[in-house]
């Protein structure tokens, strides 16, 4: 997509993510052809939607489309995707003949779509199952506004099981991690902006609290954490190596938690009220960090891998 088209899409998505969330945002995305954009230029479409949705505290079922697209299956509003459970990149299904056992999470699309894609353990195959054969529960939990769905059960397939090449599931995980990484960056930036605005306005001891270094340095560290994540996400789009995307997701997850901690502290009592928007983002980043591998477990896994092979991931050339 050229610059003008990308700017146009960005403007439309900004308005959509500021004004709507959930089913309403999905409807807008449908109307503006976001899925076509994903097919034409995945990087631009993913970066724009997920950063803006993170920034706006909005949620959509765009992740279903991202995963389906990366699996090589045409995304569709009527097709949900079952995602791995918390802190996991293990495929959520076990395919046995034409029966599929499912345990995982999903976006709210699962509650309205007729069928869902389930990738099987070992990731050699993807099955399409009827949603009404599954036990699906809308999650309240830490972030009810996110509209996550917990899904489990065993059901039959609605079409023949499709074999997957060995690279497909890792490609889907990589793409999902990039999308979630951008959403974390967007949500973190939203928190940083809220905290900076408060720090400039809030006067104590006769001066704005932004003049106190204890406050400034928390906010500067938040920015450094966000920029680290952004730099690694950009690097991960440019190389296909799954390890780079895993690092980017981990660093973005950590940035989200750093932003939540520092911005909550700077916003202090104001940020602890239900009235102030901060809590929506704090809740969101904790959940986003856990999807497709948390900062904690991705970092430990990277360390184990590096120690086992005594080799660093090859860095991108200049």
């Amino acid at each position, binding site marked *: 997509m050229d610059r003008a088209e990308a700017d146009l899409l960005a403007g439309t998505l900004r308005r959509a993510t500021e004004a709507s969330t959930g089913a309403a945002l999905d409807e807008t995305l449908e109307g503006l052809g976001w899925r076509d954009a994903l097919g034409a230029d995945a990087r631009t479409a993913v970066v724009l939607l997920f950063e803006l949705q993170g920034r706006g505290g909005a949620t959509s079922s765009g992740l279903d489309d991202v995963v389906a697209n990366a699996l090589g299956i045409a995304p569709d509003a009527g097709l949900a995707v079952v995602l791995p459970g918390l802190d996991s990149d293990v495929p959520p299904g076990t395919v046995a003949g034409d029966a599929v056992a499912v345990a995982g999470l999903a976006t709210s699309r699962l509650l309205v779509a007729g069928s869902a894609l389930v990738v099987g353990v070992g990731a050699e195959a993807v099955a399409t199952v009827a949603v009404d054969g599954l036990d699906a529960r809308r999650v309240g939990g830490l972030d009810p506004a996110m509209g996550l769905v917990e899904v489990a059960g065993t059901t039959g397939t609605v079409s023949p099981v499709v074999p997957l090449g060995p690279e497909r599931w890792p490609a889907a995980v990589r793409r999902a991690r990039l999308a979630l990484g951008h959403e974390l960056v967007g949500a973190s930036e939203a928190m*940083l902006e809220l905290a*900076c605005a408060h*720090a*400039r306005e809030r006067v104590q001891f006769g001066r*704005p609290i*932004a*003049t*106190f*270094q204890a406050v*400034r*340095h928390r*906010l*500067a*560290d938040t*920015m*450094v954490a966000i*920029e*680290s*994540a952004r*730099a*690694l996400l*950009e*690097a991960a789009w440019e190389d296909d190596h799954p390890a*780079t995307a895993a*690092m980017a997701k*981990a*660093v973005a997850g950590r940035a989200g938690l750093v932003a939540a901690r520092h911005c909550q502290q700077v916003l202090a009592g104001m940020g602890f009220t239900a009235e102030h928007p901060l809590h929506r983002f704090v809740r969101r980043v904790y959940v986003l960090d856990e999807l497709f591998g948390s900062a*904690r477990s*991705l*970092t*430990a*896994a*990277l*360390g*184990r891998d*590096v*120690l086992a092979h*005594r*080799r*660093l*991931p090859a*860095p*991108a*050339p*200049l």
Partner: protein
Amino acid sequence: MELDEFRAGLDRWLDEQAAALAPPHRSGSLDEQMAQVAKVKRLAYDAGFMRHGWPRRVGGLGGSTLLRAYLGEALTGRDLVEPGIYSMTETLAPTMIDYAAPELAAAMVPRLLRGDETWCQGFSEPGTGSNLAALACRAVRSDGGWRVQGQKVWTSLAQYAQRCVLLARSGPPDSGRQGITALFVDMDSPGIEVRPIETMHGAPEFCEVFFDDVAVPADRTLGEEGGGWSVAMDLLPFERSTALWHKAAYLHRRLGDVLGAVPDGVLEPAVVGETVQLLAAFRARSRATQHRLADGERLGPETSVDKVLVALAEQAVFDLVAAGIAPEVLLGEGSDAARWRSEFLFSRAATIYGGTLEIQRNIIARRLLGLGDDT
């Protein structure tokens, strides 16, 4: 010349010349490191590589700044030069190119590129560390030139330097940023005394420099009289861009070295993983900065993010060294042990030199987050 072509040619040359380029000794002494940098720069200059990415009017061959970035990456990544010493060129040559009279730049910059000379940077003073704009070293107009009186400190490599890019107070004592002038001073001028400072890492690379009524010709003024603050503000982003990319290659190499040496079971995987991520994030950030510079963008306060990241990455890498090969670092006798020890100790200064971590955070807060001044 394009980067790919340059990279292929340089890599081939570095392989072919490996024996000639290798350091003769590895005792780790500063004298040896200086001699090694001078030798490598000379060989790389004569082979043409050191001239790419610099303007023709100062003896360069033109081309993208990415070529310079890759040259330093390759030299530090192959452990041929100490990055801090080598990369002084990246900080000081752009300042000369932008602010010296064209004939002065044309005469001087090639000497720096060729390794004939070392230059130093006279910024900090005993009473002026973080608060650079309060510097007191005086420059007074006299006989069409300047007389300089005062003291600098933490001046890297001054005992080796033939020239100094000096910030001095040319206005009244309270003239702040407006009353500073940048001068290009010959270090053999009468009245200059250099005293190296013994440091905890064992290499006396920082110095005190005393100026006692030192004469500096008028044509050695860099930029405008009273314009020294902008010279400094334009210099610092260079200190935080290409030089840091070279540092990334060095840190990558040393992290690889320690991973090869650490016994099984000593390091927590999470600590290793986080260090690898920090270095990768710094490298990704710095890579983007190199491309912005090459695209002609003017670098500014956003390079403070790069500077914070390099400091955190360097300390994380050497924290891992201290923990992973503690017997070597704490008790070892050989030259490898001495080098690890010196590098570990030097990494403690990564959050101090070139603007402390706190100053970088203040720059980020004021210039990037719009949080106003910190008073």
